[in-house]
């Protein structure tokens, strides 16, 4: 066997100087040559053993697609990925690979793991640039045999888009209902341009359109049309409404000006393009010193967006550095770009000035215990010591929960945390209504939502078949 190349081939990135002034994508991805070099680092574990496949929530045959990159056959590489994941340009960019495929990679035991995420992204990007994805799509289209059955998909985020794509490929007539004016869910309102260019999402949506999927925007299910009405008109419904409601800290001063939920901040910036105000009409007020509370991907996205809008940014987290939940790449990029970090600080009060604008945040200093919580993180306790940090803008990124508008629908059973109750086929308490993604998980990842979308599509197919048999 050839010697293992311990260090991964780096991907080109935009310089920090350029980045902090622009919303353009930071990571530029592999070129064909670099991708082939990186692909050569994969030692091609056999299918039944490959830890990367087991580590992938949708079990992409990773060694197989990497081997096709080595051979230079990108179309085959894409075909292999598409078997399990129809949105590789997106997951290649946003998956927490270090906890999944790359975290399990054998090469990673002796050096750095194969850069599976960037290779996946390369396949998708290269295929798109060369028109290879269109060829493959044409082949898929020829295979589609139209079936009787109309499916309604509620929400056009990762779960909904995946379910829609899979069902359309099976031959069903699919309609997506989206509450906002543009489809994409968290991919369009949440994840910033510098991490996931909207152009990529647009291409994926075009693909769905080719598959015959209809998207109805400006439709809030639960208000514009009820779930009951959808059930009457469609043979099955899939709910992929995500976790769209921000958790806010009910602390003194929460109603002060310039305190945003990360969702409000990111929606203004990403979806409404407030960073181009006044060319775009939606405003955003960002001061000179921003504190972001929380340390997940959303917190990093908000922090780096605020930085690009000209603010000095500090992330304040109640736990320690190693407990941060964001992707390593995002933390790394945030650090490079000059975002500061403060650990073991738990907010207790927002302090305002005479104009009711926030001017500081009071925190209690926390300390870690040896004992771990359910998620394997060290528990923390207050020390009784307090510290006040100045801030004229605060962004709260402590998490999200499912939106009540859909979960309050008649007949839907809901868990105490607001997520929908589903059985092993992802069917909710209403027969024929399925759900997946953050609507059932609370807060998880794009790839898990997509995995659910795919599983639900299969369940919906079986459900419709069984009804026909009855």
């Amino acid at each position, binding site marked *: 066997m050839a010697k293992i190349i311990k260090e991964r081939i780096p991907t080109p990135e935009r310089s920090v100087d350029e980045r902090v002034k622009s*919303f353009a994508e930071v990571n530029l991805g592999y070129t064909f040559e670099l991708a082939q070099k990186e692909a050569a680092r994969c030692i091609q574990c056999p299918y039944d053993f490959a830890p990367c496949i087991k580590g992938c929530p949708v079990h992409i045959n990773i060694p197989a697609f990497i081997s096709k990159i080595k051979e230079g056959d990108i179309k085959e590489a894409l075909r292999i990925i598409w078997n399990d994941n129809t949105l590789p340009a997106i997951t290649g960019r946003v998956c927490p690979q270090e906890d999944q495929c790359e975290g399990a990679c054998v090469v990673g035991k002796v050096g750095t793991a194969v850069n599976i995420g960037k290779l996946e992204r390369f396949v998708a990007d290269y295929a798109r640039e060369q028109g290879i994805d269109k060829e493959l799509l044409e082949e898929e289209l020829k295979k589609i045999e139209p079936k009787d059955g109309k499916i309604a998909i509620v929400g056009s985020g990762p779960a909904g888009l995946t379910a829609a794509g899979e069902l359309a490929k099976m031959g069903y007539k699919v309609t997506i209902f989206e509450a906002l004016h543009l489809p994409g869910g968290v991919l369009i309102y949440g994840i910033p341009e510098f991490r996931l260019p909207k152009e990529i999402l647009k291409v994926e949506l075009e693909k769905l359109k080719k598959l015959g999927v*209809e998207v109805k*925007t400006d439709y*809030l299910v639960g208000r514009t049309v009820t779930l009951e009405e959808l059930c009457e008109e469609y043979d099955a419904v899939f709910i992929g409404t995500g976790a769209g409601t921000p958790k806010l800290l009910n602390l003194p001063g929460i*109603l002060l000006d310039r305190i945003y939920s990360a*969702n409000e901040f990111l929606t203004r910036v990403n979806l409404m393009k407030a960073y181009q105000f*006044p060319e775009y009409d939606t405003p*955003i007020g960002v001061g000179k010193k921003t504190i972001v509370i929380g340390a997940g991907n959303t917190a990093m996205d908000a922090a780096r967006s605020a930085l690009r809008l000209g603010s000095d940014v500090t992330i304040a987290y109640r736990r320690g550095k190693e407990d941060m939940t964001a992707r390593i790449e995002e933390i790394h990029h945030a650090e490079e770009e000059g975002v500061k970090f403060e650990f073991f600080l738990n907010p207790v009060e927002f302090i305002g000035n005479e104009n*009711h604008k926030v001017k500081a945040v009071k925190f209690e200093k926390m300390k870690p215990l040896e004992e771990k919580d359910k998620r394997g993180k060290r528990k923390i306790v207050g020390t009784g010591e307090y510290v006040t940090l100045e801030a004229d803008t605060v962004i709260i990124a402590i998490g999200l929960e499912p939106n009540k508008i859909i979960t309050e629908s008649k007949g839907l059973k809901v868990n105490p945390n607001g997520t929908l109750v589903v059985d092993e086929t992802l069917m909710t308490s209403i027969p024929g209504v399925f759900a997946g993604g953050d609507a059932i998980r609370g807060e998880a990842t794009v790839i898990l939502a997509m995995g659910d979308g795919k599983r639900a599509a299969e369940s919906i197919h079986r459900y419709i078949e069984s009804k026909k048999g009855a």
Partner: protein
Amino acid sequence: MQIEITPSVKNLGQKNLGGVVMYRITDKKDLSPIDYFIEVEAPHVAKAWKPGQFVIFITHEKGERIPMSVYKAEDGKIGMFIRKLGKTTLELYHEFDVGDTLWSITGPLGKAIEVKDYGNVVFASDAVCGHAENHATLKAMKEAGNYTISIQSFEDKENVYPEKFLAKSVADEYYLTTQDGSMGIKGDFLDVIKGLIENDKVDIIFAGGNLGTLAQLAELTRPYGIPTITTIRQIMVDGTGMCGSCRILYDGKIRFACRDGPMFDAHKVDWEDVIRRGKRFLELEKRARERYLQRLNEKHGKEVF
């Protein structure tokens, strides 16, 4: 990050994947020097809308999401009363005509008012959105068998709407007031309500309009324990409960005006914060408005507004 400003803001293309959605403007009329009526085709919204609920529209691709009360929803069309206040509402007035299309309308949003037989129902309004709701709510209340009392307050005679747009036709008892007394009763609706309460004519009050007057109304009715339901207008982004921009303190708890409202029990609202939070983007809004007006006046070669 500079982008080109498109000369025309009118929407002629299709936006939605798969199907063409055209929110065509079917009617547009002046209500007063500052308010106008606009009617737009939006069958999916019109079909589901109930009094109390609102819509969000976007004029064009670079537009903002603007929450708006509804005057009526009929024949697949949504009628709204709009004040020429900020950049978007000015632009909609000056650059969109019958036949043009809006980029987006979502709704209905928020919770509907419970329409039932309350007895004597008052709706009081002193601003554009409130006047729309006044008509819409009392129409439904009258149909439900209530005795309807409408009070509409305007600044002066010049600002009073044409008769067909007043809530007179749906009111069993109607009061019009002007601040300067140039038409109807002198004063605001609070004075009229005081009289009605003294005569024991009020079972429930609904109101919409200026937040300051609504806050006063809450204090007026509190000692009498008269149910008082008011529209809480707040700055919103998505209007679906996703961003928390419109959060208010209600009975000591955080509530979202878009999802949990927009009508709330006025006696449980923290009015001070509600009034203040409406001004969060004042400086930026002013900048956008001035920038737009400059462009508009340059285009016409004279001061248009």
